[in-house]
């Protein structure tokens, strides 16, 4: 077992006791709640006549079902309105803070936690959402849980978990031009597989990761679960602290920042820490990377050929064959030139201000290709306002993008934002599963925000390195 890693230290600090099952009872430092996975948990709590044990350590928002167009209440979609009303009743009845649309703080749960400073190093963070791993970017131990576990956390402030192995993933060297954090994580999943991380927590390290800003680190940690790892993290450093200083939690309270900093420093992985596994990836060799199939592990660099299923390990062949049939791609071809109908810039992976800025730089002065439906869905109302203050909304709308209100949107198609029929989408989201974006015949190609921008203006999957960056935003 690992020793001296951030994971070991945070785990130890939060362990309440060993349960009869052999699992540890872990105290939860921050419980994030959204409307889709929580109503049944609140219902179970009521059935048991129990109350929320730590309401001040709990924070709610609405993201999955919220419309990104007309948001007048009641919502036009009755089911969405019911879920929103249920969430409002549950959180208000329990004294839980709620970043609702009227607060101006609403957004995707994994965007608002970090931007409000709720997410901090050395915390345990859970949410009924598998992309909770995002918060690991701050050196928190963060993972997704199911609804019965949400009930556990609401009722007791704890989760029952077994300690896992730690794999260090060291991304060496410098990322090339046009290569982003998204390309790094797609490459990692492509190499280690969608189940390569089962039983592991991923520690992302190395020069390429350390040089990333918090947004990039969040994109990487976000998709840990797509590689099978329930959690992923980056050790906190000056980049982390600079972000934290600007958040609600510390901007007016530098003393609190200084008070907590020694704790954050103390949970960093030791220099002589022991890992269960170490993997090294050459960051300088990573290309802009896209998916060719229907799992996030079916990836290729933009100039690389789509593999022949017969050349893959036996257990991957059947999935690859089905994926290539669904996507209508041929082994030996590259994904470059794959025609798209939709460009989606959004999701908890890539809808932060930096993502929108970088994409806008490729969009300014260009036009969305004929026949392409392009949309930007900012990750939160704060991101939306900040982007509008910089004029990014105008750059996108002038190019022909639809500029929408924040939410999960077309990442999973739980509101009106969905693929239709067999439409193909260039998407900055995290899952290309069949049916994921709302149509079971829809085809999703995952890529970075700047690659989405490039695809939007050319109408096909495009190597962003061949497109001149036009703007200076």
């Amino acid at each position, binding site marked *: 077992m690992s020793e001296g890693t951030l994971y070991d230290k945070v785990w130890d600090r939060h362990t309440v006791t060993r349960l009869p099952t052999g699992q540890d009872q872990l105290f939860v430092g921050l419980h994030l709640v959204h409307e889709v996975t929580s109503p049944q948990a609140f219902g179970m709590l009521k059935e048991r006549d129990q109350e929320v044990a730590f309401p001040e350590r709990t924070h709610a928002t609405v993201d999955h079902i919220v419309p990104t167009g007309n948001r007048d209440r009641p919502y036009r979609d009755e089911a969405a309105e019911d879920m929103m009303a249920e969430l409002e009743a549950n959180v208000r009845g329990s004294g839980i803070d709620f970043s609702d649309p009227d607060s101006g703080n609403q957004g995707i749960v994994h965007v608002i936690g970090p931007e409000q400073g709720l997410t901090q190093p050395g915390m345990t963070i859970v949410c009924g959402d598998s992309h909770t791993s995002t918060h690991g970017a701050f050196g928190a131990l963060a993972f997704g849980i199911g609804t*019965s576990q949400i009930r556990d956390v609401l009722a007791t402030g704890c*989760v029952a978990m077994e300690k896992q192995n730690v794999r260090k993933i060291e991304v060496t060297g410098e990322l090339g031009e046009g290569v982003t954090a998204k390309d790094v994580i797609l490459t990692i999943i492509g190499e280690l597989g969608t189940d390569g991380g089962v039983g592991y927590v991923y520690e992302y390290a190395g020069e390429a990761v350390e040089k990333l800003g918090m947004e990039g680190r969040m994109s990487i940690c976000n998709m840990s679960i797509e590689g099978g790892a329930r959690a992923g993290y980056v050790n906190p450093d000056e980049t982390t602290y600079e972000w934290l200083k600007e958040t609600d939690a510390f901007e007016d309270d530098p003393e609190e920042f200084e008070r907590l900093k020694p704790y954050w420093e103390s949970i960093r992985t030791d220099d002589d820490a022991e890992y269960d596994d170490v993997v090294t990836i050459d960051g300088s060799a990573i290309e802009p990377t896209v998916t060719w199939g229907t799992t996030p592990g079916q990836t290729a660099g933009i100039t690389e050929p789509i593999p022949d299923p017969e050349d893959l390990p036996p*257990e991957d062949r059947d999935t690859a064959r089905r994926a290539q049939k669904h996507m209508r791609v041929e082994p030996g071809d590259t994904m470059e030139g794959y025609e798209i109908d939709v460009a989606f810039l959004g999701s908890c992976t890539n809808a932060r201000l930096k993502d929108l800025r970088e994409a806008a730089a490729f969009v300014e002065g260009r036009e969305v290709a004929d026949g392409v439906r392009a949309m930007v869905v900012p990750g939160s109302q704060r991101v939306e306002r900040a982007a509008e203050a910089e004029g990014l909304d105008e750059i996108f709308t002038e190019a022909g993008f639809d500029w929408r209100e924040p939410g999960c949107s077309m990442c999973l198609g739980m509101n009106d934002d969905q693929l239709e029929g067999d439409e193909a989408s260039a998407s900055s989201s995290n899952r290309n599963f069949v049916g994921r974006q709302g149509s079971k015949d829809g085809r999703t190609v995952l890529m970075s925000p700047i690659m989405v921008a490039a695809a939007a203006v050319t109408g096909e999957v495009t190597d962003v390195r061949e497109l001149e960056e036009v703007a200076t935003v």
Partner: protein
Amino acid sequence: MSAPEFSAGEAPAEKVTEVSGTGIPVRGNDIDTDQIIPARFMKVVTFDGLGQFAFFDQRFDDADNEKDHPFNEERYQGANVLVVNANFGCGSSREHAPQALMRWGIDAVVGESFAEIFAGNCLALGVPTVTADQESIEALQDYVEANPDADVDIDVAEETITYGDTVIDAEVHDAQRKALVEGVWDTTALMGANAGAVRETARSLPYVPEEHISEDEA
């Protein structure tokens, strides 16, 4: 579900030592939770009625005509042991996935491997996720296909799967096995008994202010 009575030392949940019944095979690796239950069926505030939506898009076309899928086949109606392949349940953390399977009638899932959150969600429902090697699983799937009326017996404590004259040496993850066999998979009750120690842990963390820690019994 009624509130379980629980005091320290007493098992808070039903013991699940064995599951027996007819099987149903769903073949393929990497079957994700979006396939098990598409997101549009999660616009609900209870889990009631989710069973009918299990594998919905694999079972029905756009005009709601039935497609070829084991969950549609007459011979598998009434089956309660689902037999799958590798990395089953990958993707989202939605408990709606095992809830849909359970409400369709599944009491245990046997496969080559499972995604972690999915397996944890199954455990929270008292549904064992039992693993065995690829060859044994494929043989079991073939057997179930040929003998849809024959029983498959899972012994959770002994970690075996028995069908016909065959006994598979299977695996049930340690913590899961203990929780099921001893009836301690209701972790709310289990952890609720340690409220004092929880407050102590919370107090030891520099980021948790004292006013966030209630003195009331949780």
